[in-house]
C-alpha cells in the first residue's frame, strides 16, 4: 500500500479542449488487472474496462462503481424514450466544458459528433466555450446544462421555458437534466483522481 501519490513529471497535460483521443494517468494506485477480485471484475460491467487505469482505480470500491456505471449507461444509451442520443452527449460535453474537464469533454464531444454529424458546431463548443452560438435548440440545451452545473444551482423556470420553446417535451428535458447532472459526477472523478495525457501518435 502506498502512502504517496503517483506523480507523472514526464507528462505534458493537454492545455486545450480537443477532439483527440486522450489517455488518463492515475494519482493513486489502481489494482493491477491480475489482482482484481471477482467482485471488482463484475463491478466494471464491461470486461474490457479492466484495461483502463481509471476504472480499475474506481474498482477499489466496487459497489459504488457498479451502480455508477449502470446509471451512466442507462442515462446515455437507453433510447426507448426521451431526448436523442446526440443531445444527451451535447449536455455531457457542455457540462464538461464548463467545469473544465478536458478529458471528459473530448470523449463526449466525439460522441456528440458521432450522433449529430455536426462537427463544426461541436468543435465551436470546445474552442469558444459554452457561449458559442450553436442554433437555438442546442443553445438551450447548453444553457440548461451550464445553469444546472453552477453551484448554487441556477437552473429553473427560465431554462425550462427556453427548452420547451425549442420543442423539448418533459421526458426529453428529464434526459437533459440527467445527462448534465451525471457529468457533474463524472467530471469530479476524472479531474481529481488523475490527469489527462496525450496519446502516442
Amino acid at each position, binding site marked *: *500500500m502506498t502512502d*504517496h*501519490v*503517483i506523480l507523472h513529471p514526464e507528462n505534458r*497535460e*493537454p*492545455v*486545450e*479542449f480537443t477532439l483527440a483521443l486522450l489517455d488518463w494517468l492515475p*494519482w*493513486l*494506485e489502481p489494482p493491477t488487472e491480475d489482482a482484481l477480485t471477482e467482485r471488482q471484475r463484475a463491478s466494471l460491467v464491461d470486461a474490457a474496462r479492466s484495461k483502463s487505469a481509471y476504472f480499475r482505480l*474506481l474498482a*477499489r*470500491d466496487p*459497489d*459504488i462503481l*457498479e*451502480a455508477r456505471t*449502470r*446509471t451512466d449507461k*442507462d*442515462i446515455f444509451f*437507453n433510447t*426507448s*424514450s*426521451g431526448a436523442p442520443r446526440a443531445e444527451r452527449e451535447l449536455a455531457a460535453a457542455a457540462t464538461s466544458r*464548463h*467545469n*473544465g*474537464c*478536458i478529458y471528459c469533454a473530448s470523449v463526449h464531444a466525439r460522441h456528440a459528433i458521432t450522433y449529430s454529424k455536426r462537427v463544426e458546431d461541436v468543435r465551436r463548443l470546445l474552442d469558444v*466555450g459554452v457561449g458559442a452560438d450553436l442554433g437555438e435548440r442546442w443553445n438551450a440545451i447548453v444553457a440548461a446544462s451550464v445553469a*444546472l*452545473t*453552477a*453551484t*448554487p*444551482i441556477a*437552473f429553473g*423556470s427560465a*431554462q*425550462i*421555458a427556453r427548452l420547451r420553446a425549442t420543442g423539448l417535451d*418533459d421526458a426529453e428535458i*428529464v434526459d437533459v*437534466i*440527467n445527462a*448534465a*447532472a*451525471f457529468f*457533474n*459526477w*463524472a*467530471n*469530479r*472523478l476524472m*479531474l*481529481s*483522481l488523475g490527469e489527462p495525457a496525450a496519446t502516442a501518435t
Partner: protein
Amino acid sequence: MSKVDVIDFLAGLSADSPLALIRDRKPVTREHAQASYRALFEPADPGDDSLLERFAVACFVAGLHDQDEIAAFYRSGLARLAPTESFLQALSAEITAGRTTGPYGAYPKGPLSAEDVAGPVYTVSEANQAALGGRLSAAFAHVHMLVFHPRDASAAHLQKLLDAGWSNTGIVTLSQLVAFLAFQIRAVVGLRALAGVSA
C-alpha cells in the same frame, strides 16, 4: 435498507406524478441511482470511511449547495449516529464559512489560462478543527474544492488526504461520495424545478 426512492422523495414527486411516471420509463436509471445512494450511505461494510464521516460530508456538500431540504435529509442521517453538539456546531459554522459560487479554478498554463476564474481556497478554521478532527478537516478542504473548483485538483490534494490518514480506497470512496452528491442534488433540483412549472 431504504425503500423510499431518495430522488423522488427529495424532489417531492409522488409515485403517480407525471415526472415520477417519466422516471418509471427508465427503471435502470432509477434503480441504480438508488443503488448508488445505498452503496454510499448504507454500505454492507463502511470500510475505511465511517458512516459518521459519510453523512458529515453529505451535510457539508448539501449545505454548500445551499439546498436546505437536501441538507436536512442528510442531517437526519447524521443525527442517527449521535454526533456531539460541538461537532454539529462546527459543521454548521463551516457550511456557512464555505459558501461561495462555482465553478471556478485554473487550467493548465496555456491558451485556456485566459478562462481562469479566481476563487477562494477554503480550509476548516482552526477553532473547528478540534471538533471535526484531523481526517474530516482535511476531507472538508478537499470536498470544498471538488464542489466549487474541481479543475484545480492536483496530486498534491490527494497527498494531503493520505497525510491526514485517508487510505487509497478511502479516498476513492470519498471522491465518489462528493461526485455522486453533485449528481443527486442536480437531479433533484432539476426535477423539482420541472415539477414546479408543469402543474
